[in-house]
């Protein structure tokens, strides 16, 4: 029987269906150069840790349920943290201008019915890139499922680090997309691959500096109920800052039955 109560949860933990995934990745040893021009109404999102893809479901487990998350960082200043599942919506080769379409945002059970999710678009270099005078334009289906529309051209920074990203500004009135149908670029020179992701959030939280105790979040008590299948990709981002630091912490999960 699936977990629906705290007693169910405790029983699963007692029977050994729980996991602890630590992370301590030196992924931000140097100041990142942000991809997006932050004056263009974009939130900096720099990937600081990537958890292993969730493994094949063990016998007796139908999904993974995140239950607790903890994070601290090596720096002396705290920052915001986003723990999120990533959905690859598409990518563009900045040398050739070729767009490769990915998935649309998935559908989940929301308020008793099936609802296609929506998300801000995270744009991030996934193979090293550079160039000058580059702009990007997105064509997308918005959070309400309206006919695809196109953004204004966005000028991106000339030199950008891997995993340095930000939210791509959408048209006024839109906070998210259900799908990206095309990306075009103008450039006098360019290289690298920029990938566009949707985010299905697990947690948005603070990460404390090294001088204080780590923030520990009880996800279920905070109302963040997620069921994750095998192969899901979970990344951790610093929000609003490109500063260098080394994050460390863990994500605990329980196996649903």
């Amino acid at each position, binding site marked *: 029987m*699936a*977990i*629906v*109560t*705290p*007693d169910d*949860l405790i029983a699963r933990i007692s029977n050994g269906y729980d996991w602890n995934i630590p992370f301590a990745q030196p992924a931000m040893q140097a100041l990142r150069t942000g991809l997006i021009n*932050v004056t263009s*109404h*974009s*939130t*900096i999102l720099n990937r600081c840790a990537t958890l292993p893809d969730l493994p094949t479901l063990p016998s007796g487990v139908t999904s993974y349920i995140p239950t607790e998350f903890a994070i601290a960082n090596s720096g002396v200043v*705290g*920052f*915001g*943290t*986003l723990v*999120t599942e990533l959905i690859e919506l598409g990518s563009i080769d900045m040398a050739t201008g070729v767009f490769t379409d990915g998935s649309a945002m998935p559908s*989940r*059970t*929301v*308020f*008793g*019915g099936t*609802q296609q999710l*929506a*998300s*801000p678009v995270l744009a991030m270099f996934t193979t090293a890139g550079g160039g000058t005078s580059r702009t990007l334009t997105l064509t997308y289906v918005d*959070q*309400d499922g309206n006919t695809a529309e196109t953004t204004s051209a966005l000028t991106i920074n000339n030199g950008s680090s891997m995993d340095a990203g930000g*939210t791509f*500004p959408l048209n*006024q*009135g*839109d*906070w*998210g997309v259900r799908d990206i149908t095309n990306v075009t670029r103008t450039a006098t020179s360019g290289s690298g691959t920029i990938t566009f992701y949707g*985010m*299905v*959030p697990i*947690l*948005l*939280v*603070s990460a404390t500096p090294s001088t204080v105790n780590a923030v520990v979040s009880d996800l*279920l*008590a*905070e*109302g*963040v*109920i*997620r069921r994750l299948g095998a192969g899901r990709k979970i990344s951790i981002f*610093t*929000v*609003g*800052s490109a500063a260098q630091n080394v994050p460390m912490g863990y994500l605990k999960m329980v196996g649903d039955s």
Partner: protein
Amino acid sequence: MSSPLKSLPDFMYQQFNQGNFNALPEFKNRANGTAANATSGNTTAMRSDEVVNIPPMTSPVTGAYCTRCVVIGQNANLEVRIGAEFILGTLTVSGNSSSGLTSMPSRKINKGSSVQTAAYDPYLYVDTSLTAVTPVVTIGYTNQAGTTGRTATLTLPSNALKSSAFRIAPHLQGNDTGIRAVTSISISTGSAGVLKVAGLLPIASMPVATGGFANTFGSPQGKGSEVYAVEGGDVIACYRLGSLVPDRVLTQLVFSPETP
């Protein structure tokens, strides 16, 4: 009734069974607004360019409560007020024409019975930039106790810009604390622009500290304030106080469902 506010088992049961709404909206202002003054709400505020629509609810789900609201600002030192927004009236400046005059809805508070609500922090916001020199806006309303024939008067700055929001509460009549319904809106002068009166049922009112830090308005069981239920189709808006420059906040909103 199974309400996420009733107990922790109910809280978990509803989310596991019916599915919560977990969104990550960016609330943005893309352009400067116009500062408030003593005759127009005192505190400078801006309404976000984006709103979030609460998804439809499938029986037996009848409502939902915000059980997590986390805000991270790109820049420092803001206060945000996030709530379910209800447009109580629209004024088109050209022709001094009002429309859509209506009441705040009935909603459950703290899983109790559905009651007539009042807006305790209503805003007059600029939907289309004004062409008007220090216009006087007069709002006729029914107050929080149901008393009719009340009046609020604001004198706005000249040519207020789109998304500027002016707090009405400081200008309510007498000792009134809220608005149940708007019955009239008029303006003394002007040739262009659109104003709207918005009432909020608050979800979170919180400071956004040093840029990058998250402030959390977590699960409501520990909160002493009233918690309003939302329904499918309700609109969630964000008002930023204390700044008129372009900015954005990244927000995690989680709404947990309720069934009879």
